[in-house]
C-alpha cells in the first residue's frame, strides 16, 4: 500500500508537467488544426536553455527557467511565422509534412550543438527528500509540481479572462465569424503557436533537472503529448490537463507493477483504449471528422 501511494504521488508530480505539454499541443491543434510535430523539440529546447544557462554560463536556476519559457515562445512564434503562415488554408497533411521537416532539422541541430551525450542539470534544492509518513518526495519534484500547477492555472485564467484568450476561443469555435468580428486571425495563430511552444519549453525546462537532457528527449515527449491530446479530445484544455495527470499516474503504475522497460508504452495503450471505446476523447464534446 505504501508503494502504491508512492507511485500515485510520483505520477501526480510527473503529470503536472505532462499536462503542460498536452495543453500546449491541444491548443495548437484545436485553434490552428495543425499537428505540431515540433512540439517535442520545443520541449527539448526548453531543457537545453536551462542547461546552457545553469551549467555553461553558471547563471541563476530560476532565471534560466523563465528564459527557457520566453525563448521557447519566441522560437515557436518564429516557426509559425516562417513556415505555417505562408501555408494558411493548406490541408492538414501539407502542414504536417512541413512540421516533420522542421522537427528533423531542429532535432539534428540540437544534436550538432550539444552532441548525443545525456547531460545533467544542477538545481539549487536539497538532495535529501521530504518524508511524509510512508511516502517520500524530492524537493525539486515538489517545486516542479507547483510550478506546473501555477502555469496551468495561469494559462486557464488567461484563456478564460483576457481579451486575447477570448479571441483564441472565438477562433476555435468559428474562424470565419471571428474574423468578421474583427479578430486578427494571423495574430491569433502566431500567438497560439508561441503560447503552446512556451508551455512545451516550460515542461522541458521543469523536467530537465529532474531527469537528464539529451537531443532525442523530445521524441517521447511528443508521443506522450499526442497521447494526452487524444485522451482529452483534440482542442480540449481541461481534457488535456486531466489527460496529463492520468498519463503520469498510468506510467508510474505501469513502471512499478508491470515492467520499467514498458513505462513509455503506457501512452500507446491509452491511445488504443481511447480509440476503441471513446474515439472523441474522454472529456470531449463531439468533434466532426471526415
Amino acid at each position, binding site marked *: 500500500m505504501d508503494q502504491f501511494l508512492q507511485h500515485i504521488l510520483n505520477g501526480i508530480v510527473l503529470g503536472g508537467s505532462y499536462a503542460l505539454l498536452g495543453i500546449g499541443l491541444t491548443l495548437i*491543434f484545436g485553434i490552428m488544426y495543425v*499537428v505540431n510535430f515540433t512540439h517535442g523539440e520545443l520541449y527539448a529546447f526548453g531543457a537545453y536553455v536551462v542547461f546552457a544557462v545553469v551549467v555553461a554560463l553558471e547563471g541563476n536556476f530560476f532565471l534560466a527557467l523563465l528564459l527557457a519559457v520566453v525563448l521557447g515562445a519566441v522560437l515557436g512564434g518564429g516557426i509559425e511565422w516562417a*513556415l505555417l503562415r*505562408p*501555408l494558411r488554408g*493548406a*490541408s*492538414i*497533411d*501539407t502542414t*504536417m*509534412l*512541413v512540421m*516533420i*521537416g*522542421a*522537427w*528533423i*532539422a*531542429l*532535432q*539534428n*541541430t540540437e*544534436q*550538432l550543438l550539444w552532441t548525443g551525450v545525456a547531460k545533467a542539470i544542477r538545481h539549487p534544492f536539497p538532495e535529501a527528500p521530504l518524508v511524509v509518513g510512508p511516502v517520500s518526495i524530492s524537493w525539486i519534484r515538489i517545486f516542479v509540481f507547483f510550478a506546473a500547477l501555477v502555469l496551468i492555472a495561469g494559462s486557464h485564467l488567461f484563456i478564460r479572462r483576457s481579451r486575447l484568450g477570448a479571441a483564441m476561443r472565438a477562433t476555435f469555435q468559428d474562424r470565419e465569424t471571428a474574423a468578421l468580428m474583427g479578430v486578427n486571425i494571423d495574430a491569433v495563430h502566431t500567438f497560439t503557436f508561441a503560447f503552446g511552444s512556451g508551455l512545451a519549453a516550460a515542461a522541458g525546462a521543469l523536467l530537465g533537472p529532474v531527469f537528464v537532457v539529451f537531443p532525442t528527449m523530445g*521524441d*517521447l515527449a511528443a*508521443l506522450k503529448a*499526442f*497521447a494526452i491530446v*487524444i485522451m482529452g479530445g*483534440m482542442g480540449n484544455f481541461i481534457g488535456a490537463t486531466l489527460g496529463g495527470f492520468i498519463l503520469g499516474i498510468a506510467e508510474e503504475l505501469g513502471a512499478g507493477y508491470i*515492467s520499467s*522497460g*514498458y513505462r*513509455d*508504452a503506457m*501512452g*500507446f495503450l491509452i*491511445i*488504443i483504449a481511447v*480509440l*476503441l471505446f471513446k*474515439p472523441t476523447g474522454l472529456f470531449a464534446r463531439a468533434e*466532426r*471528422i*471526415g
Partner: protein
Amino acid sequence: MRRWLPCIWVAFLVSVPLWMRNQYYLHILISTGIFAVAAMSLNLLLGYTGQLSLGHVAFFGIGAYTSALVSLGFDLQLSEGYTFVFEPRPVWLGFLCGVAAAGFFGWIIGRLSFRVRGAYFVIVTVSFAEVVKLVALNWVDLTEGPMALNNIPPVTLSFPGLGELTFWKKEPNYYLVLAVCLLSYLVIRRLVFSRAGRAFIALRENEALAESVGVDVTRFLVLAAVVSAAIAGAAGGLYAHYIKIVDPDIFLFIYTVTMVIMVVAGGKGTLLGPVVGAVIFGILPEALREAARPEVQWIIYGLFMILIVFFLPDGIVPAVSGRLRPRLSPARGDTAEEAA
C-alpha cells in the same frame, strides 16, 4: 516507344551487375532497392488513400524480425519446466512469415485507427512504431534486445536442375531485390488500377462523396493498410537476410522519415514517384557522406522536405511528366479535409 520504355529500363537494371564490378556501388544499389520497396508500400497509403503512416518502419522491422527469427529458430520459456522450441526453418518460409506478420499488424492498426483516421492515424502509427521498438528492446528472450539477432542466414533457393543457391554474394542479392522491387511495383500497379484503386483515390479526393455513392470507406482503407504493411514487411525481410543482423535501431524514426521524404519528393500518388525518390535519397547520403556529418545530412533532409512542400508540392515525377502530358488524376488530396 512508350510501350517499350519499361522493358528497356528493366533490361538496363538486369544488366547492371554484368558491367558494375564495384561491390560498394552494388551495395548502395541493393539498399536503395530495399528502400524503394518500402517507399512504394508507404506511397500506397500516403499517395493513394491520403493517409500518412508515420510508423511504417514498424512494419519493416516486424518483417525483418519475423523473417530472421523463423529462419534462426528460437526458444521461449513459457512457464517453469516448459520451453517452446522453434526449430530453424528455410529462409523463404521465414520471408513469407515476415510478410504475413507485417500484414497482420497492418490489419490491426487499420482496424483500430481508421475509425477516426486523419491526424489520429498518424499518431497511432507513430506510437505503434515506438511500442514495437520497446518490445524489441525489452523482450530479450525472443529478440536478444540490444544484443541484436546475429548470423541471420542468407536467402537460399533451390532451383530444379541447378541445385541449391545460397545468396552470399552481392550479385544474387541484387537480382533478388530487383525481383521483389518489380513484383511490388506490379502488385501496387495492379491494385491501383483495379476497382479498389479507384476507391482509394475517390476516398482521398472526397471521402463524403465516395461514401455517398456506396464506397465502403473503412474496408478499402484497411485493405490498403494490409497490402502496404505486407510489402513493407517484405522489404524488412530482404534487409534482414542481406545485412544479416537486426537490432532495435531498425525502428529508428529517422527511417520512416526517409521513406516519407522519398515518397513526397518523388511524387505521392504516382507509381514511379517513390522509386525516383528512393534512387535520389538512396544515393545522396552516400555522396554526402564524405562532405557532411550525419546530423548535417539530416538537417538537409528536413529542410529539403520543407522546400519540396513549399515549391514542388506534387513531387518530381508529376512535375516532369506534367510537362509531357496532362495528368489523369490530381496527385494531392486536399479536398477531403476541406469538405469536413
